[in-house]
Every structure is written in C-alpha cells, then in structure tokens.
C-alpha cells in the first residue's frame, strides 16, 4: 500500500518535475549567457498564465495552442526589455541588473493588475484523465509534461545544430573569442535574453495546465523561489542542467510528501516546501557550483 502510494507520487513527481525543469530553463539560459540573474522570472511565468487564461476564456483557444503564442509574446517582451534596459547594464555591476530585473517584474505585475484586476482566476479545460494503476493522471498534466520534454529537446537541437545556436554557445564559452570569430556578440545577448524570456512565458502556460486555478498578478513569487532552487540543483548556467534539476526537484517534492505524511501530526505539504530550502542551503554549502554540474 505504502509502496504503491510512493510509486504513484514519484510518477506524479516526474510529470511535475519536467514542467518545473522547463520553467527554469529560461532563467539558466539568461544567466549562462548574460550572467544576469532574472529576479523577475516569476512575473514572466505569470504573463504566460494570463496569456493562457485570456486565450481560453475570451477566444476559446486550447492551452496547447497557447504555448507558441506565449513563446512569441515572451520573445517580443524579451527583445523590448533587452534593448531598452538590459543592453545598457551588461557591463554594469551586478546590483544594477538585479534591480532592473526586479523592477521589470514589478512593472509587469502592476500592468497585469491594471488590466485584469487582482482577483484569483482560473479556467476549466476538460480533457479527462488516465488511470495507470498506481495513480490517476489528468490528461492536462500529461500534455504539460510532454510539451516540456519536447521544448527541452528543441532547445537542445537549436543549440547544437544551428548556426545561431553555435554562436550563443561560443559566447557562453568566451565572448571575446566569439567576437574575433565574427559573432555579433550584442546580437547573441539580445537573442538569448529574448529566448530565455520566451521559454519562461511559455512555461507559464504549461504550469497553468498543471494548476489551472489561482491565476493572479502576484502568483510568480513562489515560482521564482522554486526556480532558484532548481537552477542551483542543475548548475545554474546550463538549461539542460536546469531541466534535470527540475526533474529531481519534482521527485523530491512528491516523494518527501509521501514520507512526511507518515509522521503523525505533521502537515506534509508545508514540510515539502521547507525541505526545498533546506536542500538549497545544503547544496550551496557542499557544492556551490550545482549538484549536477561537471565543473
């Protein structure tokens, strides 16, 4: 009985973890290329959630189709914020980029609040569920998981098989070296930032497919924190590391839930959150370059 429950929870954990991982890839990409920590990460996830909500409730568009729309919106926002703000700050001290991304996050939250209001919203996408014996998976969660894996694979292919991808990789390795090879380094920064934001906004869609309720302008904060834990797990500067970090995080969150539930008088959900941050501290103490990084 216990084992069955644990297996079921771990499967749920993998499904959730893939989405967590995908939701962190944008953060890691931006950090890896620009060495900028996007403190406004969660706000971009929130934008993705509102894109989904609006497309579904106002136009009746399927959340799966909202993924490319959100990605395009994110790319657009990314280019706008890069050229208006980040470009001037690349060479500035770290505090400047932290404050800038923090402000961008607040700006987005308040803009969405002005437009849509601050109440909690949700949508109701009926696609059924699938019973796999040990647990029951809603199809929407399964789609979110598959979507995350596909996006991670596409990013991998883009990085390794395209000319633009190789330019970005060379900038990550040595921007001066990339410059002497004729790479437009400024352009690679802009593209990476836009791509990172595009991925993040798209991940907002996938996360609402997981939890289609509680959508509000301030929903991003919790995701920012989780993304930091996952990014550190995965080695901070690698988007693939982030993806596997997300898987690990999903497994630990769900696995520990089952274990904590065995302790009488304990509220397991609160403890799983506590555990995440114990993990973050432990990793930073033991292996600050990230648990899954090779460096």
């Amino acid at each position, binding site marked *: 009985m216990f084992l069955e429950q644990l297996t079921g929870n771990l499967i749920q954990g993998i499904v959730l973890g893939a989405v967590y991982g995908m939701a962190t890839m944008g953060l890691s990409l931006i950090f890896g290329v620009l060495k900028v920590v996007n403190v406004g990460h969660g706000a971009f996830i929130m934008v993705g959630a509102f894109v989904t909500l609006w497309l579904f409730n106002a136009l009746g568009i399927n959340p799966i189709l909202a993924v490319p729309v959100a990605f395009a919106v994110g790319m657009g926002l990314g280019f706008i914020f890069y050229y208006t703000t980040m470009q001037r700050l690349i060479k500035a001290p770290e505090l400047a980029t932290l404050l800038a991304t923090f402000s961008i996050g607040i700006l987005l939250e308040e803009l969405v609040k002005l437009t849509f209001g601050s109440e909690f919203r949700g949508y109701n996408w009926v696609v059924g569920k699938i019973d796999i014996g040990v647990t029951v998976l809603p199809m929407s969660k399964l789609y979110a998981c598959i979507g995350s894996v596909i996006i991670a694979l596409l990013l991998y292919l883009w990085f390794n098989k395209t*000319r633009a991808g190789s330019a970005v990789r060379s900038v990550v*390795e040595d921007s*001066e070296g990339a410059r002497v090879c004729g790479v437009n380094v400024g352009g690679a920064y802009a593209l990476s930032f836009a791509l990172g934001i595009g991925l993040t906004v798209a991940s907002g869609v996938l996360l609402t497919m997981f939890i289609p309720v509680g959508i509000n302008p301030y929903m991003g904060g919790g995701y920012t924190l989780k993304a930091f834990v996952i990014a550190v797990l995965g080695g901070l500067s690698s988007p693939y590391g982030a993806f596997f970090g997300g898987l690990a995080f999903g497994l630990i969150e769900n696995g520990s839930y089952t274990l904590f539930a065995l302790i009488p008088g304990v509220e397991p959900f609160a403890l799983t959150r506590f555990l995440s941050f114990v993990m973050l501290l432990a990793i930073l103490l033991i292996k600050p370059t990230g648990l899954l990084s090779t460096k």
Partner: protein
Amino acid sequence: MLTVKELESGYGPMQVLWKPSLQVKKGTITALLGPNGVGKSTFLSTVFGSVEPWGGTIHYVGEDVTNLPTHKKVEMGVALVPEGKHLFPNMNVYENLAMGAYVKKALEHKDESMEIVYSLFPRLKERQKQLAGSLSGGEQQMVTIARALMTKPKLMMLDEPSQGLAPVLVQSVFETIQKMRDEIGLTILLVEQNADAALNAAGYVYIMHEGLIKAEGKPEKIKGSSEIREAYLGI
C-alpha cells in the same frame, strides 16, 4: 591596406590613445612595438572595433571602417588574434576551428581553410578531438592563430603572440607568421613586447609610447638607433 589616422580611444574617462597614425601595406609584416601598458593592445582593439574609437579614422582596403562593428570587419577579412587566447575551453580543437569559419564567407571555404590550417599546424590535426582547455600553452596559441586563419582573413592582427611562450616556441610562432605572409599571402600587423624577435620578422616598425607613435622606420633603422632602442625598447 590599412590606414589609421589620429586614432583616439580609451576606457571610461581615461584616454589611452592620443592620435597615433599608422599604415600597413599589402603583403607586409608591420610591427607595433613598445613596453607594457603604452596602448598597443588598445590600438589593436580599437582598430578591430571591440573598443569604440573616440576620434580619428580607420580605412581598410580603401573603405572607411572607423565605426563598423567587429562582425562586419571579420566579414571583410580583418582577423584578430587576441591577447590571452580566448579559446572555447569546453569545445575540442576541431570545434574551435570550425567556430572560426562562422561568418558566411569563411563558411564557404571551411574545408579548404581546414586543410591549410592542418598543413601549417600538423600537431592540431593530431589533437583535433582534444578539448582546447586541456592543451599546452604553445598548442593553445597555435589554435588561436589557426582559428583566426579560419575566418579567411586578408589582414591578420596579432596581439602579443609570443607572450608566455618558451624561447623555442617564440621562434616557431614568428616562423609561422612569416609563412602566413609568404604562402597564404596575408598582410600582418603585429603588436609585441618581444622587440628582438619582432624586429627580425617585420618589414616596417612603429614604436609606441604613452599612446603616441614616437618613432617609425625599417627595422635596420630602429636597430641602428641606440637612442630609440634604449629609450623605448630596452635592448
């Protein structure tokens, strides 16, 4: 081929270049010499475009390229071998060289350039699967020069190519530079602190001090003037 007039640039509020002028003729090796910290590297970086010029003009093959971005210059055939190598440490030797053929024109000649590079540096062919970060200092310098060759340049600018190398290797770097001019037909602009080696290889020499050109001439003239040698080169 390259004509620089009254170039000015610097970092932040600090001006480094105070209007030096310099000319590089096609098919020659021109050396810019002087002690550490007089603006030689800044000069190359400004000509290449990674440091923004504040004033003056840069003409390359007759065109005004003063404010052209670096990637446009690479496409026009200007290559820079930067100081401190700047290789891609987690890519292997082959991938590093392939990155050199990034601009469209270089990409069209990638296989051909690769053959030239491997005949010039047979060692790199043996090491092509090895990560650049794991090579010795001399081999890394070979990769840096080879990667610049992959961009299919007409003008190659080298920033302190002999820095940190053992005397034997310094000699082979200069032999390579002469080979690139004679066999590939490159024009070369060289910045060096190692005045002895550079004076033997170059056809024309400029001496820089405090962001200015203090002397210029054929290497025989520089070697013959004890005043110049003692004041600026310490040899």
